[in-house]
C-alpha cells in the first residue's frame, strides 16, 4: 500500500461517516466490557433496527476506552457528542430515540466537566473515536500516514533527528531521551537489529498500556515500524502481559490486518523496507518490565536481569543491538512525525515534553484514564480532573510510580508534574499509575504492602534485593504490629540505603522508595507504631 491508497481509504471512510446521520459509540475496552458492554452493544443494535434507522444512517461502533472507567459502561452519541454513564441494556431504546431529540438526562454525563475538558489528547486521540478492530478507522484519522511519509521521503537519520527535536522521553518510567536511544541503536555495530515494545505493564494500579493497546493497537504498530526504519531493524517483538487477553487479541487482529494491507511484512508501502512483528506473552513476573529481564524472557528463559553495560542498544535480544521502548513511547511517534518535533516540543515543560497518560485510581471520584500535558499540577489532576476524594474524606497522599515510586503528601500538591520534580519528591514518574489515598489509609500498611510486593517479585539473583526486601518486610511487620523499637527504625533506614545502592536492577534499586518516602513525609506514623517502652 502506498500513500495514495491510504488517502483513498481515508476518503472512503470519511464519505461513509458523512453519510451517516447518527452514530453511537459503545466502549469496548476491558473495564466497560466487564460491566456488560457487549450485551449493551447488542441491545443498541436491536433498538436501532426496531426504531427504523437504516444501516447507513446510523452506525453503532464498538470503540476503545472513553476514559472514565469508574462510571462504565460508557456510551457516546453523535451528533451532539452526548456521553452516557452506567448504561444498561434497558436504556438502549431511550438512547436511540434521543438521537434526534433531547438527550436522556437521567444517565447523561457532562462532557464539559474538567475530567474531559482539561485533558489534552495525543496518545489517546483515537481512543473512544475509532473501532480498534477496524484498520480503516485508524487510517481515516491519518493512521499510517506518518509511516508512508518517512518511507518515501525521509532518511532514517532525519527521523531520528525529528524524534530528538521533539524532546520525547521514555514513557516507561526512567525518562531516557528517546531520540538518543534510537541514535545509539542505529549507530551500533552488528546486525540484524531488533525492536522491542515493552507492554509488560506490571505496576499494580497502572493500566495505560492496556488501554492504548485495546483502544488503538495500530498506533503502536506504526510507531514500532517507524522506529525500526529509523534504527535499521527488520524484526519486532511486543512483550505483553498474559493478564491482558483482550489487548493480545486486538494486537493479533491489528498485525494481521496490517500485514494483509502491506503495512507490515515485506516491501512496506512499496519501499524496500521489511518489518515483521511478533507477539510474546509475559507470564506474570514484575521483574520482566526491566529491559534485560524482558529480553531473557523473550528468549524463553527465566526473567532475570543481567548487569549493564552492555546495554541492549549494543547487545540485547540474542546479542543483537536492540531498541526497547514502552507502549506509550511508540504511540507518541506517529503524531510527532506527522506534526513535527517542534510541535511536540511546545507542549509540556522545559525538560519534560509532551503529554503523559495517567491511570487515576484509589480514593478518587473520577477513576479512569487521563492524558494531560507535562507540568500540570498534582492538585489539578486530583481535585479538578479527578473530582476530589469521595465520601467527604480528606486527601492524604498520592502514590505514583507503583512499587518503585513513593507517596506524595498534601503539601506538595502544587508541584508541577514532570520527571525531575517527582524524583526530587522521592517518587518517580513511573509508567503513570496514580493511586490516591484518603485519611483512612495507614502509611505503614502501604509501605508494607509494596515491600511485600517487591519481596515476592524479586527474582532472587542478587542478594541485596532478595534478602534485603525480605528483611525490610519483616521490620515493617513489626511496625504494623506495634512492637518496633528505635533500633528497628535505624535498621530499616540503613537497609533502605543498602538495597538502593547495591541491587543489580531497577526493581531492587527502587524497592526502598515507598519506605523512604513515607518515612520522609509520615514519620510520626512510624513513631506512633513503636512500642511504648521505647527499648533499644
Amino acid at each position, binding site marked *: 500500500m502506498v500513500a495514495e491508497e491510504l488517502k483513498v481509504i481515508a476518503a472512503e471512510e470519511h464519505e461513509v461517516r458523512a453519510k451517516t446521520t447518527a452514530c453511537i459509540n459503545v466502549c469496548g475496552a*476491558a*473495564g466497560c*466490557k*466487564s*460491566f456488560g458492554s457487549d450485551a449493551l452493544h447488542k441491545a443498541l443494535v436491536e433498538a436501532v433496527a426496531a426504531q427504523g434507522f437504516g444501516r447507513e444512517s446510523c452506525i453503532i461502533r464498538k470503540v476503545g476506552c472513553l476514559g*472514565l*472507567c*469508574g462510571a*462504565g459502561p460508557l456510551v457516546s452519541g453523535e451528533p451532539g457528542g452526548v456521553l452516557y454513564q452506567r448504561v444498561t441494556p434497558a436504556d438502549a431504546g431511550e438512547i436511540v430515540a434521543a438521537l434526534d431529540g433531547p438527550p436522556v438526562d437521567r444517565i447523561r454525563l457532562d462532557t464539559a466537566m474538567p475530567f474531559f475538558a482539561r485533558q489534552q489528547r495525543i496518545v489517546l486521540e483515537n481512543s473512544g473515536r475509532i473501532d480498534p478492530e477496524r484498520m480503516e478507522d485508524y487510517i481515516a484519522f491519518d493512521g499510517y500516514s506518518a509511516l508512508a511519509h518517512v518511507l518515501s521521503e525521509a532518511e532514517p537519520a532525519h527521523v531520528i533527528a525529528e524524534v530528538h527535536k521533539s524532546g520525547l522521553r521514555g514513557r516507561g518510567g526512567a525518562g531516557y531521551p528517546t531520540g538518543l536511544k534510537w541514535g545509539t541503536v542505529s549507530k551500533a555495530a552488528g546486525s540484524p537489529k531488533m525492536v522491542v515494545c515493552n507492554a509488560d*505493564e*506490571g*505496576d*499494580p*494500579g*497502572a*493500566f495505560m498500556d*492496556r*488501554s492504548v493497546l485495546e483502544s488503538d493497537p495500530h498506533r503502536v504498530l506504526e510507531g514500532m515500524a517507524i522506529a525500526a526504519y529509523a534504527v535499521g531493524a527488520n524484526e519486532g517483538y511486543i512483550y505483553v502481559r*498474559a*493478564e*491482558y487477553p483482550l489487548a493480545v487479541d486486538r494486537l493479533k487482529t491489528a498485525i494481521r490486518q496490517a500485514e494483509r494491507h502491506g503495512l507490515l511484512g515485506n516491501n512496506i508501502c512499496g519501499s524496500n523496507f521489511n518489518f515483521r512483528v511478533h507477539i*510474546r*506473552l*509475559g*507470564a*506474570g*513476573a*514484575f521483574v520482566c518490565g526491566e529491559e534485560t529481564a524482558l529480553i531473557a*524472557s*523473550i*528468549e*524463553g*528463559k*527465566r*526473567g532475570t536481569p543481567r548487569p549493564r553495560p552492555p546495554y541492549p542498544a549494543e547487545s540485547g535480544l540474542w546479542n543483537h543491538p536492540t531498541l526497547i521502548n514502552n507502549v506509550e513511547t511508540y504511540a507518541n511517534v506517529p503524531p510527532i512525525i506527522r506534526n513535527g518535533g517542534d510541535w511536540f516540543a511546545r507542549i509540556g515543560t522545559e525538560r519534560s515534553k509532551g503529554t503523559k497518560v495517567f*491511570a*487515576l*485510581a*484509589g*480514593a478518587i471520584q473520577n*477513576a*479512569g*484514564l487521563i492524558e494531560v500535558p507535562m507540568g500540570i499540577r498534582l492538585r489539578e489532576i486530583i481535585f479538578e480532573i479527578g473530582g476530589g476524594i469521595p465520601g467527604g474524606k480528606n486527601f492524604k497522599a498520592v*502514590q505514583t510510580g*507503583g512499587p518503585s515510586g513513593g507517596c506524595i503528601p498534601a503539601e506538595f500538591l502544587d508541584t508541577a508534574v514532570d520527571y525531575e520534580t517527582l524524583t526530587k519528591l522521592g517518587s518517580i514518574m513511573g509508567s503513570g*499509575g496514580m*493511586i490516591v*489515598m484518603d485519611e483512612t*489509609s495507614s502509611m505503614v500498611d502501604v509501605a508494607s*504492602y*509494596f515491600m511485600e*510486593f517487591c519481596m515476592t517479585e524479586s*527474582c532472587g539473583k542478587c542478594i541485596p534485593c532478595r534478602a534485603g526486601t525480605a528483611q525490610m518486610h519483616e521490620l515493617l511487620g513489626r511496625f504494623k504490629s506495634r512492637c518496633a523499637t528505635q533500633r528497628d527504625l535505624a535498621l530499616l533506614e540503613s537497609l533502605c540505603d543498602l538495597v538502593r545502592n547495591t541491587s543489580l536492577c531497577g526493581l531492587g534499586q527502587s524497592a526502598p522508595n515507598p519506605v523512604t518516602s513515607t518515612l520522609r513525609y509520615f514519620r510520626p506514623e512510624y513513631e506512633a507504631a513503636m512500642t511504648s517502652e521505647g527499648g533499644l
Partner: protein
Amino acid sequence: MFAYFTKNDPPSDDKRWKIIAATMRKLGNERYALIETLHSLQQAFGYLDRPGLEYIAASLKIPLSQVFGVATFYNHFTMKPQGRHACVVCLGTACYIKGAAGILKSIEGARGLHPGETTADGGLSLLTARCFGACGLAPVAVLDGDVIGRVTPELLEQRLKEAVERGR
C-alpha cells in the same frame, strides 16, 4: 545419556498434545519457544504436569531442570490442577486501597479456602492476582474469566454460589 533427550513422544494419545506440538513447531522447535509452549500446555490442560514438562524438555532439547526453573519462576504458571471454577481476587494497589483484603478474608471465612487452594470436591479454586489493570472498577475479582467490578463480599458470594451450582 539423558533419558529426556531421547524420548519425545507425547505422554498420551490425548488430542490436546497436538496443539502443544504445533506451538513448538511454529517456533521451529527452538529453545526460545519454551515460554510460549508452557502457555499452550497450561491453556490446554489447565496446569503444568510432569509428563508434559518432560515432553516439552525432550522436544525442545532443554534440560528438564531448566524447564522446571522457568515453569516455577513465572507466577502465571501453576503446577497444581485447578478446580472447575476459578475465582481470582485482585490484590493490586487500587484494589488494596478499596478493601481487597476484606474480600479475600470473607471467602476464607465462608468457604475455608485460602489463596492457591482448591476445595476438596474440585469445585472451586481461589487465587490472587497482582493487577488486572481494571483499577477504575476496584475492587475487582475475576470469576471464570469474567471480571466483576466494584465487588463486595455479598456480591462475590452470590456469584460464586451461582457458578458452583451451574457447574454441577
